[in-house]
């Protein structure tokens, strides 16, 4: 496996910590158990775009595992893995679609949101239920309902939070040689 730069290690650690704090203390519980209106997926999408698929996957994986740890409802492997897959897919699509987070424009945002919707559906409507059916032997229709809830909710939050983050981040990026004192 290719060697990580120290920076991406730290990015994974801090990213997971952010993911945790948002997921654990900021998210708004929704009627369906184990699915939250969770802000953290907006963050995850953004970080995956900036730091790449591997980082994205690990941030989702570690962050979600820690959340489950601290809630103590057991590790919900199916959902943890789904989060990781979402991070991975987001990172990949950023590469494929050549999103340039440094100066994301209208086009960039459209790309970002299209891919995030697709990735969410893939993670919550396909990955999570399939795993649940195998591991917990739960009925399909319930899982699909859950997945749909989660997928839509997360896509909405990502559309708002994720896009805002992308725009703000792009604004901090300075073009080479652009800084000079004026009076």
């Amino acid at each position: 496996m290719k060697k990580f730069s120290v920076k991406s290690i730290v990015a994974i650690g801090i990213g997971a910590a952010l993911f945790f704090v948002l997921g654990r203390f900021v998210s708004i519980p929704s009627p369906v158990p184990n699915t939250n209106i969770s802000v953290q997926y907006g963050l995850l999408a953004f970080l995956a775009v900036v730091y790449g698929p591997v980082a994205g996957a690990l941030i989702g994986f570690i962050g979600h595992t820690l959340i489950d740890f601290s809630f103590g409802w057991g590790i919900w492997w199916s959902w943890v893995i789904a989060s990781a897959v979402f991070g991975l897919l987001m990172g990949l699509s950023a590469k494929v679609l050549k999103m340039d987070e440094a100066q994301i424009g209208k086009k960039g945002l459209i790309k970002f949101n299209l891919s995030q919707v697709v990735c969410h559906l893939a993670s919550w409507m396909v990955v999570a239920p399939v795993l649940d059916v195998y591991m917990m032997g739960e009925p399909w229709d319930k899982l699909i309902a859950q997945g749909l809830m989660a997928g839509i909710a997360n896509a909405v939050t990502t559309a708002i939070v994720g896009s805002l983050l992308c725009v703000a981040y792009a604004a901090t990026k300075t073009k080479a040689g652009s800084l000079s004192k004026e009076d």
Partner: protein
Amino acid sequence: MTNLFNYIDRPSPIHRLSGASKLVCLLLWSVAAMTSFYTPLLVVLTVLALILFRMAKLRVKDVSFTLSIMLVYIALNNILIFLFSPAHGVELYGSRTVLIPLPGRYSITAEQLFYHLNVILKNACTIPPVILFVCTTNPSEFAASLNRIGVSYRISYSVALALRYIPDIQREYHDISLAQQARGVEMSKKANLIHRLKAASTILIPLVLSSMERIETISNAMELRGFGKGKKRTWYASRPFTPADYGSMIFCGLLLIASLALTAINGGRFFNPFR
């Protein structure tokens, strides 16, 4: 917030096990419980889990919070399953013994109840080990343990970093939200979704951006102190294995084998008393 994962430091055989072996056991146990629907085995595992709790000298009040969440969760989950597919048990076990006839699909069948029993047992034997692991393992040992069981030390260290900075980021989130309010940003506490999201992101943006600067500082500090130069690294918090460690790992290994074997013998994952 200092002790988010409520690690409870008590002298007990479970505490004395090294984190790495506990992690291995947790994984083996989880797989064993996840793959099997063989009811007797699930019962055995549940009982075992309770015994381990006593061994770890954990009291109910130590874990009352997580326990209550767990119970609520299990209840909700079962209600949902029943609402969405009240006849799932019938499909699984291929027979239909109505106990209480109710309108529509919602008649209560022995099969369905037995299926619910299985679901509950499954939660009851997958969840406690996690609580046990969290309560008896010093967070400092997490990363060392991961590395010990073969996860690359770089990734293991990012787990350590996450644990290290969660309290800081929590505190920062708090302070930023206050600072923003002080400068006139409205934070309505109403559960109105869009409103909440807007408010959240006014905090989120400074939080994330300052965290990204922090990423710079930390990776600088780490590189300055030689992180990532070698293929391996040692851990201050790691602990050497004892016979007890090997013993427990072997035991959990056997559990997994048993569960797989039973599934094979039983010719199917579901233990069916109705045949």
